[in-house]
């Protein structure tokens, strides 16, 4: 879900240097060719920012685990390429019952797991029942985060559960999943790797559910360490913790196998180091390229690919601060910020200006939402109206030492916005904190903060995943209590029909725009960088990028 990067390449390689280099590295080069013989071109090396937390996606919630899981596993539902919309994958189609609670899936035929077992209705039910029957540590948010937060209850607490049962149909390829409560985002949620289909046999053989440890230190199982078995285009090979993880093409894959025969995820945690590795040719690509790097890398012939933004960066306002309780002050702050200028100067190419808290591709985006144009004069007048003709002093909290897909360089964003707020007479009291764990604790845990930078990267196409997360309940982050807004969000979430949900969310977005709990700044577009030989990459706003679709030049 989250992470990123700067620097310029010089003209250091003098002719003599190159000549010596050729002499000195001659033996290394030839060794390399020997070792990899003729598959040199079909190995794709991608820099990961960390090891995956586990190879069992049901117990993962981090971006690096999902990146690997997407190669090995497939879910019933996939994602329409290039969008955030659900599309058929292991299920070719599905039907919703009249009461909206049952979904009947028609499964793809002839699909096998990497261990040779068949993918069928029973396997589907095995997986659903597995999640539902999680006990103990497996139920904690640090293990099965997504099942916990989306399906809410387990077999030992059925009153909270969204899931009820799974029944194989008349044929091997028909299966019905019945929910206990309406869940409009059910189909979209199934596109998350956390709900991918895993081989029942392998899950049992390698003790996938034998989690031990406490809620905070969940142990990794044998399955999650070295035996993940799915139906995807790539099979797990090896994992050298801290160094690299290797996958190879699955010969029996039902779909197109593509150019890539071997994937190597190399762990390079430093963003600067990732760029240097790409320049030195030891990797083929990396994610979350810093805005400053994109230009330099592009000039040097590397390919920069930007995802459609599925992010939001906002300036939060804590209404526990007396001045910020006045909506006129919040309006003034909104109008003091020239968002376009902010985007041009501090955010990557492809970033879109934000008028609300969901990106345009998400359902419920309101084209006609109230906007506040940049107008420092009007902002000053509003402040005077609110009783602060000479402005006031305001704490501005921002994180340091972190890059997020929605905020590659927080320090720059802070500097830019501070300057603009100073213009309308607000005195800024800068409050930097290290991202982890201090910043989040301070913003989300207590009252001691003023305005702050934060954002979100969506997991899948679900409006509640954005606005519901931010404004669904009273939180120390924003410090306001708005029962009507909370109720409206609760109501919208409970509607099981997407078409009925749409107008509700459009109204909610307008309500939020008038209430201004925070200033939506931008939808930053995360970028990837690739070596020249990577001709095409299946870029996806929700990171649904499977490497069998990569095209490599010879």
């Amino acid at each position, binding site marked *: 879900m989250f992470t990123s990067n700067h620097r310029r*390449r*010089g003209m*250091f*390689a003098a002719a003599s*240097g*190159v000549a*010596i*280099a050729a002499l*000195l*590295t001659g*033996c*290394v080069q030839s*060794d*390399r060719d020997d*070792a*990899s013989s003729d598959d*040199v071109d079909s*190995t794709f*090396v991608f820099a990961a920012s960390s*090891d995956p*937390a*586990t190879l069992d996606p049901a117990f993962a919630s981090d971006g690096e685990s999902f990146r690997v899981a997407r190669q090995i596993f497939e879910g019933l539902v996939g994602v329409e390429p290039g969008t955030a919309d659900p599309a058929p994958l292991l299920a070719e189609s599905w039907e919703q019952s009249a009461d909206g609670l049952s979904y009947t899936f028609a499964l793809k035929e002839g699909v096998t797991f990497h261990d040779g077992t068949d993918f069928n209705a029973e396997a589907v039910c095995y997986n659903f029942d597995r999640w539902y029957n999680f006990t103990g540590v497996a139920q904690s948010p640090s293990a099965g985060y997504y099942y916990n937060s989306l399906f809410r209850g387990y077999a030992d607490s059925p009153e909270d559960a969204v899931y009820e049962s799974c029944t194989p149909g008349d044929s091997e390829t028909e299966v019905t999943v019945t929910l206990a409560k309406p869940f409009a985002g059910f189909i979209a949620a199934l596109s998350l790797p956390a709900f991918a289909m895993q081989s029942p046999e392998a899950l049992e053989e390698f003790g996938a559910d034998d989690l031990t*440890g*406490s*809620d*905070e*230190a*969940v*142990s*990794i199982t044998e399955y999650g*360490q070295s035996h993940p078995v799915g139906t995807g285009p790539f099979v797990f090979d090896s994992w*050298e*913790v*801290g*160094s*690299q993880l*290797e996958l190879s093409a699955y010969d029996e894959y039902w779909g197109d196998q593509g150019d890539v025969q071997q994937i*190597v995820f*190399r*762990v*390079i*945690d*430093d963003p*600067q*180091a990732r760029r*240097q*590795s790409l*320049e*030195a*040719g*030891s*990797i083929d690509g990396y994610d979350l390229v810093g805005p400053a790097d994109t230009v330099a890398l592009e000039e040097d012939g590397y390919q920069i690919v930007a995802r459609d933004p599925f992010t939001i960066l906002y300036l939060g306002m804590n209404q526990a601060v007396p001045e910020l309780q006045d909506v006129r002050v919040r309006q003034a702050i909104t109008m003091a910020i020239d968002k376009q200028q902010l985007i041009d100067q501090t955010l990557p190419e492809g970033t879109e200006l934000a008028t609300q808290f969901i990106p345009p591709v998400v359902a419920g985006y309101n084209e006609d939402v109230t906007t506040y144009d940049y107008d420092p004069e009007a902002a000053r007048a509003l402040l005077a109206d609110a009783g602060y003709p000479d402005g006031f002093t305001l704490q501005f909290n921002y994180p340091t030492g972190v890059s997020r897909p929605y905020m590659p360089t927080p320090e720059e964003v802070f500097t830019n916005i501070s300057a603009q707020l100073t213009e309308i007479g607000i005195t800024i009291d800068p409050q930097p904190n290290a991202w*982890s*764990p201090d910043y*989040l*604790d301070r913003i*989300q*845990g*207590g009252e001691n903060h003023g305005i702050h930078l934060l954002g979100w990267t969506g997991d899948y196409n679900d409006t509640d995943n954005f606005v519901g997360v931010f404004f669904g309940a009273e939180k*120390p982050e924003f410090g306001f209590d708005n029962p009507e807004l909370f109720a409206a969000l609760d109501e919208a979430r409970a509607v099981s029909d997407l078409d009925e949900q749409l107008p509700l969310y459009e109204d909610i977005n307008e309500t939020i725009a008038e209430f201004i709990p925070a200033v939506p700044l931008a939808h930053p577009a995360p970028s990837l960088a690739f070596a020249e030989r990577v001709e095409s990459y299946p870029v996806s706003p929700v990171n649904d990028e499977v490497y069998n679709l990569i095209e490599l030049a010879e």
Partner: protein
Amino acid sequence: MLRVIGKRLALLVPTLFGLSLLLFFWVRSLPGGPATALLGERATPERIAEVNAAYGFDRPIVEQYVTYMGRLLSGDFGVSIETGRPVLEEFALRFPATIELAIVALIFAIGVGIPLGYIAAKYYGKAADHVSVVVSLIGITIPVFFLAFILKWVFAVQLGWFPPDGRQDSRIDATHVTGFWVLDGILTGEFDAAWDAFMHLILPGLALGTIPLAIIVRITRASVLEVSGADYVRTARAKGVMERTIRDRFVLRNALLPVVTTIGLQVGLLISGAVLTETVFAFSGIGRFLSQAIFSRDFPVLQGFILFIAIIYALINLIVDLSYSLIDPRVRVQ
């Protein structure tokens, strides 16, 4: 000799015992208690109570200590909060990498540092001396991570002489036996893998070895200068002993004592330097793991690491002390 070793090893026991006692109280005196340190400040009282129960922090302190020592003695250092693997397993995975790196760094620092220091002393006040003093000054003042980036940018990115990251080329499929990859390659006969692993050690080794190198140059220079002025050197020279013999047997041998002491102390520096070097070169050693553990409050890892380092430190100092008796016969007599 054996008695000396035995005695020193026996002394290690109270040292480690004291350290484990300190660590025990350190974890329990974290602000808000260990559970808060783990969960963050916004943890609910119920969650804190759960964690306290899970880790036994709610038991009487004496009982906690007995359990804790019992676990340590049976080699159970707990499970890493971040990775979910036993701490010892994590160390076993990463420690050989750092040791390989430290060996290369030390060979570089000693192999270049001692001759350079000697040359500086021999040509005291001349150009060679000035150059080596300036070089060692730069070596001491330059931040490790900066040096690492420069080395990498020049020799990996621009010139392409050395690999920029990791311990092995991602396309080489090597068999690993001991965790020391260069050694593994030699043992299994996969010489290309051994060579590749070795090439991966050069740049981080240089970066890591630079500060110890600079210190060794300075100490060697000062020590050689001092010894060269000693009476027995003058006497030897007056007796007509060959210049080479004077250098090897009279000057260098006596000048080495303080140098060896310094080298022993450098090991600590190597470990802290490894944190930065390993990050820049994406080298999967203990340093990089440790920096992640600090940021994520992974205290089982930190606790285990401190004990581990203490053992290493004590052993290195033991080796240093023993080497005195090799270098200086007077120590043997005592």
